[in-house]
């Protein structure tokens, strides 16, 4: 005898009510995630005096943005962040794509050793690299230089994203490359001319992830740079001064820092989703 199950409360509601409830829950979840960002934008549009009160009046201003943009250090930090994120993305992609391909296609001592190496590095907590890196950067004279910040970023990307790239290539049928080998390509040629073009969505996805990762990174930047290479995440935090916290300016900077990430995510998400699904 089949048990007739009592329908759930939700299923017993009329259609309209069900839709309404669904909408409310959806809205609630979205609000939960969007609230900090909305609050940030709101704060960035406030006068300094309006920041600290619960009832914050109705005065809004774009003055914060103007003030922040007049600060050379902030502008320089934006440029630096963009440069470092772009360079880190380009260099790490060069390595990740080929190392992911190797991990996916080749077995042997070299591939196994490489696999083991990045596995070990992945297992180490990210934060525990920072202090040793600081000392290394100091003794090699790389402290507070572009290279000193770039290299650790590239290393982290290689460890984290080689795995993703291996996954993408695992999803691409190797017989296309075999066909290329027979059609007169070298192994390297088959990779460049046949495997790479098929991996473009994945590479684009990885590019977006790499770029955002570096753009948003705070810890390495804080420890490994001083005054000469300001980056946006660090500069943003420096609105906390002995004079007090300039919340409105910090928020304005943060909103501007959000923009490239937002744009990239907007245009890149198609690739990211397709790439990650590959």
């Amino acid at each position: 005898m089949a048990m007739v199950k009592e329908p759930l409360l939700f299923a017993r509601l009329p259609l309209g009510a069900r839709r309404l409830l669904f909408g409310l829950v959806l809205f609630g979840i979205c609000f939960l995630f969007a609230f900090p960002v909305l609050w940030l934008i709101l704060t960035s549009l406030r006068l300094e005096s309006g920041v600290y009160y619960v009832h914050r009046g109705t005065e809004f201003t774009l003055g914060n943005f103007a003030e922040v943009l007049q600060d050379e250090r902030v502008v320089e930090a934006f440029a630096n962040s963009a440069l470092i994120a772009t360079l880190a993305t380009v260099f790490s992609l060069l390595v990740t794509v080929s190392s992911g391909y190797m991990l996916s296609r080749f077995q042997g001592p070299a591939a196994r050793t490489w696999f083991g190496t990045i596995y070990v590095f992945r297992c180490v907590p990210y934060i525990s690299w920072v202090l040793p890196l600081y000392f290394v950067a100091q003794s090699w004279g790389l402290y507070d230089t572009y290279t000193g910040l770039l290299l650790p970023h590239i290393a982290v990307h290689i460890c984290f994203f080689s795995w993703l790239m291996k996954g993408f290539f695992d999803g691409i049928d190797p017989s296309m490359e075999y066909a290329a080998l027979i059609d007169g390509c070298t192994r390297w040629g088959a990779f460049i001319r046949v495997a790479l073009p098929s991996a473009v969505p994945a590479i684009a996805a990885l590019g977006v992830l790499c770029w955002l990762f570096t753009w948003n990174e705070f810890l390495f930047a804080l420890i490994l740079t001083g005054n000469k290479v300001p980056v946006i995440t660090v500069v943003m935090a420096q609105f906390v001064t002995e004079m007090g916290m300039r919340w409105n300016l910090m928020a304005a900077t943060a909103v501007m820092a959000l923009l490239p990430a937002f744009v990239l995510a907007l245009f890149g998400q198609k690739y990211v989703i397709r790439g990650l699904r590959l």
Partner: protein
Amino acid sequence: MSRPEAGGPEKHESCMASITLSKLNKHYGALHHAVKDVDLTIADREFVALVGPSGCGKSTTLRMIAGLEDISGGEIRIGERVVNHLPPRDRDVAMVFQNYALYQHMSVYDNLAFGLRNKKISEAEIKAAIDRAAEILGLHDLMKRRPRQLSGGQQQRVALGRCIVRNPVAFLFDEPLSNLDAKLRAQMRIEIKRLHAQVPTTSVFVTHDQVEAMTLGDRVVVMRDGRVQQAGTPLVVYNNPVNRFVAGFIGAPAMNFLDVTIRREGVVLVAQSAAVKLAITEPSGEALAAWIDRPVVMGVRPEHLVLGGDGVLSRSFQANVEVVEQLGSEILLETRVGQARVTVARVAPETQLAAGDQVRLSVQPGRLHFFDPNSEAAITA
């Protein structure tokens, strides 16, 4: 990597393109011996079908010929050249893959041109070669499309086209029809056959489907566990299988096997079990004299059994119908004879039969096969 030209002075004879495998071996690690001492000569322009169950080493053998797989031992010659250490691009062969392996990011035209452009051939010549191939395969309307936009059959035709434009010394086919549905598979089979007639080129065709092997191959090579079991024309392999495996693998529905004992009754030998007693009139009967009072495995193909005992009574036996499969053109009968199951093919479709019926089956003359129960080798005169 050195390129030993053991075949004497370097020659590049596209006219003589036999493929010779001698003592070919492939090991994967210490444990897996995928291909064992394969000796095979494929004559110029011959179409050889390598057939066997999955994991029998047929694809590995093909990939070694193509150069996609290292050779653990033995020698491969294409024409006069030893190609053991040549990379795939220097072997001048073309290959069709199970999943077509077309370059997804290129148009059909560029797919066809890819190999020729690698050889630095002029675009005008490439166009001419592609036009010829397109003519043969009917690809003209597809040239601008991407592989994704083609059906499975069309993709496989493009893959064939990619082979023939290169005018290689040999075509290698790695289960090219497995991804197609049954109807299309039959069409493509004919297309490949026609292609081979039009562009006679040495071909090695790997398949697990014995029908493809039988219909396409000038010669069929049956493999199991990395070894060649038998190589011969389709008819030879069908009529004179060298062992029980080949007998069971070639032919559909598969051959029936019954455990019997050989006895002498007067001047004739009979194969006898609890349910069957058949007089042996086959030529192999003489060899069976050595097997008197010993068990052997008797094989008979479903299509060589006839319903009714109207022939000689000593060549028929009683069977119990278990399943009746009406195909329209014929009936397949699944019967039980003692402990054994026996399939009967080519029963007239009008025949009224139901499960549980008793029928009498007789064996066509000369159609019994006998195998050593231990070595499984065929017992022949």
